[in-house]
């Protein structure tokens, strides 16, 4: 659990982060959204003390982060950044083994962990261990960057625009990978982005920042339904119905009955189901789970969920 209490950073006359307080419960993903200059990155960098706060404090599992030297604190917090920041002179294995080495793990344990993470990120250890970062594609570099951040099994992971440099297809895949891995390790994640779509997709809770102030800190549903200010509404954009639909899975709205045509998987989100209805001109779609027919979802039901929550 991360507790940020009244955190402020002043550079010269300006408060880049202005008394922000928020709590990220253990095992959840908090996405900090804002435009550039909103203070979102500075807020995140104060968690691992890459930036020292002017005032306020950060507690991790109840303990003040100032209780230990910054470099010791950072070794138990994963850190992944835009453009990955891999060490160009070190192989993939050496990059991933950076923090375990700093922590003094023995070689066997480090090697086993490197192979485990590479496999988890769908990179064959035999093939990729000894490559240099320059010999990887952008998507692979990004995955190695996240693997490096997770190497020592931190229970907190900080990510600064981790998918910013990826093209849309690889980006969607990387986001889903992150969700899967986050669930598996139950890592507490703080992720900074300027992309509201990404925030809604990934976040258990979203913190919207502007000019150093925390405007709203709430679940994606709440933010879409009741944006706290004009600015938050603007960030969400005009297609709020669709964003709302994208938050729920088909499985929760299945009703008994039959329908014609190509079925949709119960794991798809409502936005995909809605789009499929419109595209194929159907009033209802058959729903399957693991190939088994389990019912149908209707256009009427979908439209009801696209409406503004009461």
């Amino acid at each position: 659990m991360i507790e940020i209490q009244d955190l402020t950073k002043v550079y010269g006359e300006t408060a880049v982060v202005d008394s922000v307080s928020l709590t990220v419960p253990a095992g959840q993903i908090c996405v900090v959204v804002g435009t550039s200059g909103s203070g979102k990155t500075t807020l995140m960098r104060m968690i691992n003390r890459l930036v020292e706060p002017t005032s306020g404090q950060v507690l991790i599992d109840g303990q003040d982060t100032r209780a230990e030297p910054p470099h010791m604190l950072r070794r138990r917090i994963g850190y992944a950044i835009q453009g990955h920041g891999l060490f160009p002179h070190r192989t993939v294995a050496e990059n991933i083994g950076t923090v375990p080495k700093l922590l003094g793990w023995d070689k066997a344990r480090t090697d086993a962990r490197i192979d485990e993470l590479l496999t988890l990120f769908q990179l064959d250890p035999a093939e990729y261990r000894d490559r240099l970062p320059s010999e990887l594609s952008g998507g692979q570099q990004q995955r190695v960057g996240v693997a490096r951040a997770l190497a020592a099994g931190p229970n907190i992971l900080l990510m600064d625009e981790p998918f910013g440099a990826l093209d849309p297809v690889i980006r969607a895949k990387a986001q889903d990978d992150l969700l899967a891995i986050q669930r598996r390790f139950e890592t507490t994640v703080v992720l900074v982005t300027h992309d509201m779509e990404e925030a809604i997709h990934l976040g258990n809770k979203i913190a919207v920042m502007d000019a150093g102030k925390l405007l709203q800190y709430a679940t994606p549903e709440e933010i879409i339904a009741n944006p706290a200010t004009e600015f938050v509404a603007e960030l969400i954009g005009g297609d709020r119905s669709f964003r709302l639909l994208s938050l729920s899975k088909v499985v929760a709205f299945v009703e008994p009955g039959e329908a014609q045509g190509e079925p949709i998987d119960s794991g798809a989100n409502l936005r995909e189901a809605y789009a499929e209805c419109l595209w194929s001109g159907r009033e209802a779609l058959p729903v399957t789970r693991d190939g088994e027919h389990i019912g149908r979802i209707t256009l009427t039901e979908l439209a009801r969920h696209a409406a503004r929550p009461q």
Partner: protein
Amino acid sequence: MSVGLVIRLIVLALLVAFLVSPQTFVFVFRPLVRAGQPVIYNQGSLIDLTLNHLAIVGTAMVLATALAVGLAILVTRPFGAEFLALSRSLANIGQTFPPVAVLALAVPVLGFGTAPTLVALFLYGLLPIFENTLTGLTNLPPTVTEAARGMGMTGRQRLMRVELPLALPVILAGIRLSTVIALATATIGSTVAARTLGEVIIAGLLSRNTAFVAQGGIIVGILAVLIYDGLSAIERMLMRRTGQAGRQA
């Protein structure tokens, strides 16, 4: 093997052959001398002079590298930033003083011989190495240094494991520059009785023996070209090995 490499190996072989057995090459230099003059330098062993020349340059470069790299590391640390201006002017003074002037000033203090030459080469070599090390340490990719901090490396670990290895090719380029300048400048050392290849050139000038001048000049020239190429090759290899092939030195 590339054509360039073959040519360099042949040149190196010829140089070694000439140093080991100068008499074999009499036919090359005979056209340069007047009747009755010796064709091959006869006031000392060419190979000894060459090795001594290289030793003086090598010693000066090791010392200059140690000081220049040390200073550059110091002034790029948070606590040393205020010494940046001072170090820059120190290295600049070293470069501005003509080596001849350094020799002239050093002789009364250090006496004739190798010492004044060593001092001149050392001072003259500081600036390129210092400036290149500074460039190398300050132009690292920001995401890499940021990641190193974020991983929890201490200042010393960042320097030894990330900053210096990545800056090494650029530092080496500075050493290469200084070494080539020093190889040529060391010949002047013979005016104050340092045992370098300058002796051969000066002897030739004094006795109007063009063959001597050519022998001294050619040996220094070939050494400079080969050492320059050799160090360049090491830089390119380091660039590749550190995954920075695309970066400018």
